[in-house]
């Protein structure tokens, strides 16, 4: 009996060691990014793990950089992400609710068309979007907002999976009592889907902070750094052709850490919804 419990303890210790090792492996690059943001560095390159010299200068520098107006980027991104959050959430939840709870002739074809459209690589439509916005004279933040919001109607899968799990008998009971479908939507559907609304809102809020491709294509033509979003601005800092990537590399890392902190907090908060979303969408197909 004793040897059995010993064996179990040994196995537990072994598993803890393995888990700790893996956790260190996963978290180390992130710690390194944070360390690099504090390192004194003017070579445009971080070649050591532990910085030779610590400094706060990078954080001060990124806010006072006249060539890369970080403050404007944050303001732009905040405005875009809040507007996009409100509109996209409304669109996504409407479409998901309709497709999950209501029955109408166009429902099946719409689901199939959405599936097919989703299989075209997103980059393919980028040139077209560029020309559409150019034609509308909207190669600016407003156009970018339209791009983020325009596709929201197709991102209904996770929310639809959620609505599918709410029993339909609730709706039917309300309808027998004389409620219109609109009343069912407003007074039953929406209150029940609060977690889903929070999840959809957070995902669409985060998207503009991490997208450097669409924002780059749409905003780069203006050439005015004050109109960039955070993601494209930062990306542009190290990938610019003007060749000053080296001078500002440490400031780039500091800027990245600044925007990664709120996103990380939001992400930990919505982790639970995320898992539910993936698994709910998984078995519905």
């Amino acid at each position: 009996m004793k040897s059995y419990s010993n064996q179990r303890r040994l196995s537990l210790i072994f598993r803890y060691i393995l888990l700790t090792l893996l956790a260190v492996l996963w978290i180390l690059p992130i710690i390194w990014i944070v360390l690099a943001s504090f390192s004194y560095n003017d070579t445009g390159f971080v070649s050591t793990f532990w910085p030779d010299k610590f400094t706060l200068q990078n954080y001060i520098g990124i806010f006072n950089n006249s060539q890369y107006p970080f403050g404007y980027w944050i303001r732009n991104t905040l405005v875009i992400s809040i507007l996009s959050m409100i509109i996209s959430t409304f669109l996504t939840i409407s479409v998901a609710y309709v497709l999950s709870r209501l029955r109408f002739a166009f429902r099946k074809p719409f689901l199939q068309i959405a599936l097919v459209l989703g299989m075209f690589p997103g980059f393919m439509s980028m040139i077209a979007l560029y020309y559409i916005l150019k034609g509308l004279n909207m190669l600016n933040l407003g156009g970018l907002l339209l791009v983020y919001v325009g596709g929201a109607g197709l991102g209904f899968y996770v929310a639809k999976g959620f609505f599918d799990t709410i029993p339909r008998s609730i709706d039917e009971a309300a309808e027998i009592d004389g409620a219109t479908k609109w009343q069912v939507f407003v007074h039953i559907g929406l209150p029940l889907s609060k977690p889903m609304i929070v999840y959809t809102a957070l995902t669409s809020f985060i998207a503009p902070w991490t997208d450097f491709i669409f924002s780059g294509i749409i905003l780069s033509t203006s050439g005015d750094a004050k109109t960039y979003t955070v993601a494209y601005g930062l990306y542009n800092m190290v990938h610019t052709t003007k060749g000053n990537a080296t001078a500002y590399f440490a400031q780039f890392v500091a800027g990245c850490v600044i925007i990664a902190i709120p996103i990380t907090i939001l992400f930990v908060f919505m982790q639970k919804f995320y898992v539910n979303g993936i698994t709910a969408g998984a078995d519905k197909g």
Partner: protein
Amino acid sequence: MFKRKHNPPKATYREVFSKGSAATKLSFFLMGSNALENKQWVKGFCLMLSEIVFLIWFFLSGIPTLNSLATLGTVKHKRVVYDAAQGVYVTKQPSNSVLLLLFGVLALMIIAAIIGLYIVNLKSTRHNYVLKRDGEHIPSNGEELASLLDTRLHATLMAVPLVGILLFTVLPTVFMISMAFTNYDRQHPIAFSWTGFQAFGNVLSGDLAGTFFPVLGWTIIWAVAATATTFFFGVLLALLIESKGIKHKAFWRTIFVIIWAVPQFVSLLMMAQFLDYQGALNAILQNLHLISHPIHFIDNQASPWMARITVIIVNMWIGIPVSMLVSTAIIQNLPTDQIEAAKIDGANSFQIFKSITFPQILYVMAPSLIQQFIGNINNFNVIYLLTGGAPMNAKYNGAGSTDLLVTWLYNLTFGQEQRYNASAVLGILIFILSATFSLIAYRRTNAFKEG
């Protein structure tokens, strides 16, 4: 159900037209007149107004737009012509085929929309006719509007999202598909023409074939390897965290998931620095005296397979946490009776994993695995940010050894090559690839489900 919908006997359109009132007959030509006759004012006016606006647009600008869609502009090259009216020579700029094509596609969509409205109009006319014939109550203007919040709520809620999808997804997609049938490239940057399947020929058997097939091969290897590794190790990690005796499970999970919160353009660009020839990893390995010379992991001097394997390993760093989260949710809901029975029969934990847990998870996760596989075929970020396609391959045309079809597509459009038609062809081929795989996979999983 108590409120069975009223289902009147059908009438053919022929009957509606021959027996209907004058306004009903007129409805076949002037949309909405039947609705107006029945005092459904809002519906009638909207339908009629859209037809009038459409007809004005169609004759003033629709026909020329469609004509130039057929030719994509008549002036193909910049040339100097003699203007007899003014008696001077003027330079004629080539037509802007991109805009002509875009407006042409838009015009086709408008025509499709008006045909849709016409069908709606006919259906509503027939409905009203049948109600009148059978002496039933015809919905009034107010009732028609109220139904938008009840029996036709779907139309109300879908209207705005649908416009967004049409303008920002369908229009660009159709536009790009048509671009694959033109000669829009560096030689024809402004005015281009329809060339049929020529661009497909270039990619499949012409000058790009030598790049296309190797890149396609690597894309498939990458998608299989990336999906399989992240799935397998994600399941193992989930089992490890879920195993008996481990405390603070949520804390461990969060540690692994944190990397998902860091924007990928940050974490992957920094990873590229970390793996660089002069980067931190080489420095650490040298300090530990594990290697005597720095290794080329992902830079231009790296060997192709070194770079490819590095990319797959870095992708495990990104991808394992996600499949860990998904399989955790599944593991928590797995029936335990089989495992208990196997334990009593003396199976060890490896046997249990191999014969019970893993197959069960695989079965439940099959649909999301397909999604991941397609996601990996289109995994732009990892390749673009980490290697940018490097190491360059002299045998390839505009692509490197780690380039996937999507990153190559991106290079062909935004890089030096500027072969827009070829990139559109690639987009269509990627679509065919994804569609084929998901079709096969959905069929197989459905077969499983039916049992």
